[in-house]
């Protein structure tokens, strides 16, 4: 057991740093610093640069386009991208449906979809939750009825993140109404341009258009776009959730977030001293750092420990719970740190608008981000559901 980086690892770290320094788009950096909302093009700009370099999917097996990096190299990669404040990559293709397709898909599905996920050609969204099916996901009622070589899909999905940009969606649908809940579900890949699909925005607390309702009305989907067996979609869903949970531990990003909070708290004054000298505020920052270290080493144990080759298991629920709690505390602390300037509502720059928004740059998105990040303990299986998973799968209760 050790934490040393080998000379090869250190060389790799240098290579990564240099690559980011030379290739990260400057205009994207400016937009991030101003606290503007990111467009589809912004998200894809960095994606495409990484695709060209061959670094877009470090977690994938090499045969499907992965990098073949060691766990240490992947650790370095996430550290360095977070340190350099690189924009996050959309997880829907790379971290969610991609692994489902290369694990459960047909050769044709792999050949068609995987390269397009890697290149960024297809933007994916996730059709899981329904108005009546949140934590009880398996109660979903969207139906797919066989019709020749196709399914006819009817129903409504909700909380569909960035569906307004999506070319494709992966959907959980009911293909057998008689079977026990989890056993009658199938996993379908659906072209979002199919006739019968309507996407309607839901505006969340920070004013963002991030999530949507997706209506499906007699949508025709070829059966060849079903992943894995009919009525076995729950297997894919569980696999995907376990993968998603580890991703959202977000250790490296939270480390970077703490550095940002500290920078704000060194600038903001509390009396004649920096806010960071306030014993109560300082203690909250320190507690957050300590809890983040505990999360980091728990994640490292799962990535580079004895069970590293087993893939994400139910204990990844721990990473989700603690990771999301930390992300929320971080945004809360940021909002606290910016003081009065948490209040002005920054709507982003309008057309031809070059007036500087109210307050310091670091304050523009403090409140919207705090509001928005309440989602982290709800999505991906709420933290209460994660506790149920640990109780059942780990503790055997």
């Amino acid at each position, binding site marked *: *057991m*050790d*934490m*040393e*980086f080998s000379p090869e*690892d250190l060389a790799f770290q240098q290579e990564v740093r240099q690559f980011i320094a030379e290739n990260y788009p400057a205009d994207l950096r400016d937009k991030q610093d101003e606290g503007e909302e990111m467009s589809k093009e912004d998200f894809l700009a960095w994606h495409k640069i990484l695709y060209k370099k061959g670094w877009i999917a470090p977690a994938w097996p090499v045969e499907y386009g992965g990098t073949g990096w060691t*766990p*240490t190299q992947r*650790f370095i990669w996430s550290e360095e991208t977070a340190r350099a404040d690189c924009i996050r990559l959309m997880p829907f293709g790379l971290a969610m449906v991609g692994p489902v397709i290369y694990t459960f898909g047909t050769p044709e599905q792999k050949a068609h979809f995987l390269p397009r996920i890697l290149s960024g050609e297809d933007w994916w969204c996730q059709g899981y939750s329904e108005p009546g099916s949140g934590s009880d996901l398996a109660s979903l009622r969207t139906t797919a009825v066989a019709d020749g070589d196709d399914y006819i899909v009817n129903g409504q999905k909700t909380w569909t993140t960035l569906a307004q940009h999506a070319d494709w969606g992966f959907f959980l649908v009911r293909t057998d109404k008689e079977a026990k809940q989890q056993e009658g579900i199938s996993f379908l890949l659906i072209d979002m341009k199919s006739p019968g699909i309507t996407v309607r925005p839901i505006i969340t607390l920070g004013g963002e258009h991030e999530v949507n309702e997706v209506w499906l009305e007699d949508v025709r989907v070829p059966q060849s776009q079903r992943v894995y067996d009919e009525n076995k979609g729950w297997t894919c869903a569980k696999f995907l959730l376990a993968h998603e949970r580890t991703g959202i531990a977000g250790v490296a990003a939270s480390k970077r977030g703490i550095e940002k909070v*500290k920078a704000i708290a*060194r600038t903001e004054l509390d009396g004649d001293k920096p806010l*960071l000298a306030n014993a109560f505020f*300082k*203690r909250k*920052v*320190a*507690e957050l*750092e*300590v*809890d983040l*270290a*505990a*999360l*980091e*080493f*728990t994640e*490292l*144990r799962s*990535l*580079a*420990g*004895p069970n*590293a080759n087993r893939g994400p298991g139910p*204990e990844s629920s*721990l990473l989700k*719970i*603690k990771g999301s709690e930390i992300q929320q505390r971080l945004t809360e602390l940021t909002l606290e740190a910016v003081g009065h300037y948490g209040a002005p509502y920054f709507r982003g720059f309008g057309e031809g608008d070059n007036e500087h928004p109210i307050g310091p740059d670091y304050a523009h998105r403090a409140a919207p981000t705090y509001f928005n990040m309440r989602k982290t303990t709800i999505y991906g299986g709420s933290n*209460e559901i994660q*506790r*149920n998973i*640990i*109780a059942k799968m*780990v*503790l*055997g*209760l």
Partner: protein
Amino acid sequence: MDFTYTETQDMIRDTLARFLGDTYDFETRQKFINSDTGRDPAIWTALAQELGMLGAPFAEEHGGLGGGALENAIVMEELGKVIGIEPYLPTVVIAGGALKAVGGAQADAMIPEIIAGNAIIAFAYAEPQGRYDLANLRTTAKKDGAGYVLSGHKSVVYAAPWATHLLVTARTGGNPRDRDGVSLFLIDANLPGIVRRDYPTVDGSRASEIYFENVAIPGDALLGGEGTGLPLIEQIVDEATVAVCAEATGVMQKLHEGTLEYTQQRKQFGVPIAKFQVLQHRMVDMFMEVEQARSMTIMGTLKLSLPANERMAAVSAAKAKVARGANFVGQNAIQTHGGIGITQELAIGHYFKRATMIEGQFGSADHHMERYERITLND
């Protein structure tokens, strides 16, 4: 970067777990901790001579197994699982750590004695006024010819009633709380002028108040430099602190497992109480504290070899997290057991008592948060 254990490390853990499984069941432990001497010396002898376990962190040239802090953590965690009262911490981790650090003739003489099980060394560092400040010392060692004369009062010296030797911190110069002027001595426990008041501790061990009444000690009892001992003391206390974090991990794991087991047997309202979601989530929260304690112990252990400031920040982060976790897991284990949890009958309460003492050992969570902040957030 690698978070796996070596085959030797796995072997140490398995061998020790098997041995303790055979010799340290709860009833047996209760018998010997309540005996006159409060221990079963045969266990220590067996740990040394049958298992070679007291050599875990020592170099092979001294007769050890060639390990270090990770091996100490493994042993401490296993001791934690049986709420073991064996003086491994003061003897092997602390005194052994100091001897390894100073090396030379002193190490050559004493380390084999530790490994053989002949030496039990208690760590006399705390004082009534000193709280967790290692430099807050009123005990003095005054130069006297080739040796020193030791005077002062040391508090709550765990394992002192059993000790053949004492590792003592004392002031050879400066004022109480100065960083300079602190020295470390390894002395015979039975020198004239050493007065002990022995007592049992709430967590099943034995300790003493020790009064040094003008005790003449030889010059070669000094470990390291005269008056420059504080960095060494800080280092060995940091090593000891992560070692108790490892012990805490074992204690917490047992508190959690015991609670899981009990809730599946205990029925109320016609069902095992483990069926209640409110208790399931509580036990998940306990589980997460156990796992994080394990992670922080590993983090702290691996960072012991870093430069002093990084080491101290890491150790303090670990101890603060583990102390809070031990508090949470201990209190909730008792709460979940209900009335039976507050009796002496079940092992669970005895694990709780040890967990509670570990919270404060070598500094409370608040003390370590403050040290952490002083190092990482002061600028």
